[in-house]
Each structure stands twice: as structure tokens, then as C-alpha cells.
């Protein structure tokens, strides 16, 4: 096996870059990183980034945390360029047995002000250079802003719970894991175990799913045309309003509370089975102060969502899959009462697998930690 083998061309190229005019200066690396961060969708800035990437990748272990730090405010494309540069630096250092970056990497990992992804990447290389770091650091990641670091820490607690000798010890560990878990599979693993131990968990609240809605519909969406029609609720939410819906049938707002564990609102049940239809759902959300949040939606059919009258997302896709957190919008709640409005359209497909008309919506922070309305009641 040739694990860690690096091509002579890369080594030679890196040597040439590193020695032709002396070591790379901090400003050269900084310039390169700035160039990489300028890449955008549509291939914008890629040619320059390609050249800059070679400089960043040759920056050496002493500057690996400079490259990692550039991830803090990088866009999604630039982040991948920077990640690849970190990996190139790391691979070269590992191949030569140079572990000198480990102390700075550990400081970087422990500095929670850096981006979660950058810290996780730093951690991966830290453990490569210093395997003992895992045992030293992992327990401290249980409530980490990096969901990837947190995931590993939760996994350790779940494993410990499984091996625990007494029901009390198991319960305590599963409760710890449940409180810290943010990924759906781990949330389910912990909650299922707790249910078996006789402990009831409130999944909708843990996720931050909105369960109390006011609904109105159906409006006409024959031929999919209703998706772009601004029916009255879309112009102004008036909960006393009465409107001509699909086939001129009068529609009014109705109260609806979902008890589904993932906050699903089944519109076929709430409004009656409809095809070629559109419906609106509105919820009030009370925030103590201006709060940055993510509004995360799952919908099997076309959907739009507004916060306080501002369109956040619009997806005109029917029966092409659904999952928790399918669409994510980053926004800010204002202090006081916020209005979340959702429009869900159903098309006229006749296949048995194309009959669902439902959605789910949750409010959380960037780690997936629920942000709850001040007037939220616990789920029954």
C-alpha cells in the first residue's frame, strides 16, 4: 500500500512554489484567499481562483489556520475551494511527517467564534496529526455550535447509554443525548429509547415545528396556474375574510393544530381531498427580541413562504420528494408578533404516490436548535 503517497509533480510543484522566491508571505496567502472567496455561481471568478488555489494549497502547515479562518465568511462555493486547499496542505504535511500544525489546529477547534465547518475540518486534521486529541476534546463538543462535532459527541453518549448497566443510568444518558441531538436520526434514536424507558418526549417542541395554524382553501390551481396567482390571503391576511375559492365555493380561515410528531399539516385532512388546489396557512410567532433564525420547510408539492410579508422561498416542484429541512431560509424575526404565511399548491397528478398535500415548518437557529414562540404551548 502507498497510503499518503503524493505525486512527484505536486511535491515538485509545491517545492518550486515554496522555494523560488522564499516562503510564501502572509499577504500573498491573504491575497490568494481573498481571490478564492470572490468565486460565485455561474463560474464567476474561477480562473483567478484556480491560480490563487495553488498558492493557498502551497501555504504550508504554518498557514493552515489562515486558510481555515477564511472559511468563516466564505460562500458555499468558495468554502469548497478553501476546504480543498486545507486538505492539500494537510496531505503534504502528513506525507512528510510534519505534525507542527497540531497546536494551532487545536486552538482553532476550540475557538467557537470560527465557522462550524472550519472547526470541524480543523478537528479532522488535528486528529490526523494527534490522535489523542479525540479523547481529550470530544466530551466538550456535546453542545457545540458545529453540528458535526456535536454529532460525534452525541454518538458517544448514545453508545454509553446503550451499554449502561441500570435503567436510571440509561435514562440519564439518553436524556442528555436527546437534549444535545440535532440530527434527525440521533433525535429519533434518543427519543425512541426514552419512550421505551417510559419517558415521554415532545418532539415537535424539540425540533421547533409550528403546530398551531390557521388554514384557508382550496383556491384554484388547475393546470398549476394558481401558484403564481396572488389570492387575497397573499395580499393581506384578514382572518375574518371570506373569499371565493376553487369552483367559486366560499372559503374561510379555520383553526388547525397538528399532533403529528414532525409537525406535518395534512391539508387533505384539514381542508378535504383536493387536486389542482392551493391553500394558505398562517401562524403568529412571538419573539422577545430581533432574532436571526432559519425557517425550514418540508413539502411534497409547490410551496411559497413569507415572513412579515417578505417572500422567503418559492419552490414550484410537485411530488418530487420531501424531507425535514428540505428548504432552508435564513432570516430575522422582529421583536413582537411575526406573521409566517405559507402557500401550498397541489397539482392534478393521478398516481397513487402523488396524492399527498401537506407541509411542515420549523423555526430554529443555524445549528437546528429550536427557536420557540413566546406563547408556545407544549405539544400534547
Amino acid at each position, binding site marked *: *500500500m*502507498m*497510503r*499518503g*503517497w*503524493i*505525486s*512527484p*509533480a*505536486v511535491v*515538485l*510543484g509545491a517545492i*518550486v*512554489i515554496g522555494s*523560488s*522566491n522564499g516562503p510564501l508571505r502572509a*499577504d*500573498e496567502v491573504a*491575497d490568494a484567499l*481573498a*481571490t478564492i472567496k470572490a*468565486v460565485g*455561481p*455561474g*463560474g464567476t471568478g*474561477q*480562473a483567478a*481562483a*484556480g*491560480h490563487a*488555489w*495553488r*498558492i493557498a*494549497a*502551497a501555504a504550508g502547515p504554518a498557514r493552515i489556520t489562515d486558510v481555515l479562518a477564511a472559511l468563516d465568511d466564505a460562500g*458555499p*462555493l468558495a*468554502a*469548497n*475551494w478553501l*476546504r*480543498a486547499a486545507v*486538505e*492539500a496542505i494537510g*496531505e503534504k504535511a502528513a506525507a512528510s511527517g510534519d505534525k507542527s500544525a497540531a497546536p494551532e489546529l487545536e486552538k482553532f477547534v476550540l475557538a467557537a467564534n470560527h465557522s462550524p*465547518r472550519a472547526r470541524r475540518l480543523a478537528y479532522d486534521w488535528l486528529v490526523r496529526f494527534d490522535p489523542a486529541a479525540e479523547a481529550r476534546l470530544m466530551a466538550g463538543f456535546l453542545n457545540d455550535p458545529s453540528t*458535526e462535532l456535536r454529532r460525534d459527541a452525541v454518538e458517544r453518549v448514545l453508545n454509553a447509554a446503550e451499554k449502561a448497566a441500570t435503567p436510571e443510568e440509561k435514562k440519564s444518558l439518553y436524556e442528555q443525548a436527546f437534549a444535545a441531538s440535532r*440530527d*434527525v*436520526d*440521533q433525535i429519533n434514536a434518543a427519543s425512541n429509547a426514552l419512550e421505551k424507558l417510559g419517558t415521554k418526549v415532545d418532539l415537535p417542541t424539540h425540533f421547533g415545528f409550528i403546530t398551531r395554524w390557521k388554514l384557508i382553501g382550496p383556491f384554484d390551481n388547475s393546470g398549476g396556474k394558481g401558484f403564481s396567482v396572488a389570492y387575497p390571503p397573499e395580499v393581506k391576511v384578514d382572518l375574518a375574510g371570506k373569499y371565493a375559492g376553487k369552483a367559486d365555493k366560499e372559503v374561510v380561515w379555520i383553526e388547525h393544530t397538528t399532533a403529528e410528531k414532525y409537525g406535518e399539516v395534512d391539508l387533505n385532512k384539514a381542508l378535504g381531498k383536493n387536486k389542482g388546489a392551493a391553500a394558505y396557512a398562517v401562524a403568529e410567532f412571538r419573539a422577545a427580541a430581533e432574532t436571526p433564525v432559519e425557517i425550514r420547510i418540508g413539502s411534497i408539492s409547490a410551496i411559497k413562504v413569507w415572513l412579515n410579508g417578505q417572500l422567503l422561498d418559492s*419552490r*414550484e*416542484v*410537485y411530488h*418530487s*420528494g*420531501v*424531507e425535514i429541512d*428540505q428548504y432552508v431560509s435564513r432570516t430575522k424575526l422582529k421583536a413582537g408578533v411575526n406573521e409566517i404565511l405559507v402557500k401550498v399548491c397541489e397539482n392534478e397528478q393521478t398516481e397513487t404516490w402523488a396524492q399527498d398535500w401537506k407541509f411542515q415548518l420549523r423555526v430554529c437557529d443555524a445549528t437546528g436548535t429550536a427557536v420557540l414562540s413566546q406563547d408556545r404551548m407544549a405539544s400534547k
Partner: protein
Amino acid sequence: MNCESTRRTSGRLLVFTVVSTLFFAAHSASAADWSQFRGADNKSRAAESKLPPDEFTLETDDVPKVERKNVAWKVELPARGVSGPIVVGDRVFVTGASGPKQDRLHVICYSAADGGTLWHRQFWATGRTICHPTSSVAANTPASDGKRVFAFFSSNDLVALDLDGNLLWYRGLTLENPSAANDVGMASSPLVAAGNVVVQVESKGESFAAALDAATGETRWQVPRTSQMNWTSPTVFSADPAKPIVLLQSPDKFTAHDAKTGEVLWSYDEKCGEISSSTTEGDLIFLPSSGLTALRSPIGSGNWEKVWQENQLGPGNSSPIVKDGRVYVVNRAGALTCGDAKTGKVLWRQRLKGPYWATPLAIGDRLFFVNADGVMQSVKTSAEAGEVVAESKFGEAVLGSPAYADGGLYVRGEKHLFKIAQP
């Protein structure tokens, strides 16, 4: 960037570029490479220089090491995927996806000689990663032009790296087309043709085919496609090698495009398969449509004519193979059917052990099939009715199409990458 810094940086880059160019010169594209889905020409067949072994035996808990046979190497993969491997020179490239949401994308380069990891790059998916558990975000087989590797994922992330793992360009096509996704997962493999990387992105959201400059990643052409789910891959049609044509197969039509410009040269507006892709031979195209349909498009004709259509030659998930005047298809149940490529007349059938997702490989007088359970069957096609000459087991699921180079079969399983070759 200040002037001094620019001058120093330019100097470093000039030297690096020279070194890289010299290295690239040793890696020119070769017909012996298995450089993309179904090989360099999308025909799923290899030159007959060196046959791989008909059978192999892996070392397992029940099989001692001493009985290991014809397994050059086996390496554990760090990420799951259903894409096939490709082979360029002395290197094997594999893609994968990991994490609870499969949003960590992997491109790994192995030494063809001993399976050692040469480099490993990871990326964060910029598009949607929802997919059926059977599939993977790494469902699309990568492609190479002999100098670069193009890794495409269900999330519509398209990464270009040189053979040493240096990042050349990166496109996140979902950032430009936010609804281009489906719940099964996208699986169309990229195609290298006329200096472009062609991708076919078809779903119930935004749907299109695009050709990106292989060197820069810039979009050379883009054509809209019907919004519908489709998993077929673009195929190169090189009846006239000077003017390669890209064939795009969708459930509602089959279109031929100038590989350089994207111009539509002709369209066959009939229902076509949405999984199994077309293959070509000379000026004939074998299209999964109403079973299998053979179209002729003579050089310069700008049109097509139907030669034959045969319901009994309908392929399942695997794509058809044409070799030595015969066409071979395997259906979902695992029935291999051989037909006359000129007439479509069915010549023989042979029951194999399906189900298949991988497209088989044709080498010499052998067809190598690997089913979803990881059972490989070697079929002798020179026999009157096709003869299964050997059967071997990988011991894990295999969904990606195998690759061949220099006497070795490269098979990507659920957990491992295997090289099957004579000692």
C-alpha cells in the same frame, strides 16, 4: 493584490504551471483508459488485449487467505456511493458521499497498481442531497479527459480536479437552479466530448443539459429540457470523429446536439427509457425505446431513420451493449437477450442472476455481469446460446458499473473497491 505581490505570485505560478504541464504531458488521454460511464466511448467494451479472469475468490471469514484468487487488491472505501470507478493511466478514481445527510462529497484517487490512496478530496454539497436509500448522492460516475477528473453528484455539484487532486474549477449547479432535484436522487453521469463536460440535469424542477468548458468550467452551451424525472446519461455519437455529437435521452424525446455548440441536429420524438441509456456503433444508435430501437443517422444527414424496433430487446436498468454485430440487453429480472444488431432479430436468451443496476462489460468473447447482490457472472458469448462460464461473489452490494483497464476489472461495492486481475 499589490504589484510586488502580484509579480512574486506570477513568478511562482509560472514555474508551477511549467511543472504541471510537463507532468500532464505524460498523462495524455488514452483509448486504454476507462475514462467515463461505460468507458471512453460509452460502449461498455474494451480492447481484447488482456482478458481479466473469469472468476475470483475473496478472502472472507469462511475462506482462508491461501485460497484468495485473482484479487489484485481490495480497499475499504471511506464513503458510500453507487457510481462506477474510472481508470486513467495508473490511477483509479471513485466518488462517494458521507454524513447523515450525505452532504459530504468525496473524490478519491487510488493507485491502480496496489490500491494505495494517492489523494482524497472532500467537499460540502451545495445542492439538495435527498435520495432513495438504495441510491446515493454519489450516483453519477465521474469522467476524465485524461488530464482532469470531473466528479458530478446528485446535488449537482460538479468538481474539476487535475490528476493530482489540485482543484481546477467548481460549479454548484443547484445554486443556479434551486429546484433541480428529485426524491430518488439524480444519477446522470457526465460526458466529456469536444473539450466540454456535458451534464444532463432533469427533474420535476428546473431541467437542462449544459456543456461546460473542461479547462475553465465556463458554460459553453445550455439547452432546456422538459421538467420530468430522468436518470439517463448523455452519450457520445462519433460516427464522424471530427464532429462528435451528444445524444440526450429523455422520457419524451431523444435529441442529437452538436457537441461544441449544443445546436439541435435532430430529434426523435417518441417515448424513451428514463434509466437505461443509448449506445452507438458506426452510424447506428441503439435506443431504449419501445423495447430497443435502432436508429441510423448517416454522417452529415442531420436526421435519423428507424432501422428496426424490437420489444423483446428492452433493457432493464443496465444499458445495452453492441459487439461484433450483436446487441446484448439484460432486463430487470436478469434475462440476458442477444439480438442481431443489424436486424433486431432475437438470437438467444440466457437466464442470469439479477437484479442488475450495473451495466455489464464486454471484453473479447466475454460479458462480465455484476448484480446488485455482488454476484459476478462471466458469460461466453461465442457459445451458441451464451454460456455462463464462472460465478464469483464480492460479498457486498454492487450497483455501480465496473471499469476495465489493462487486464483488470475495477468494481466498486457498497464498502470496498476491488481490482480483479490475474496475478
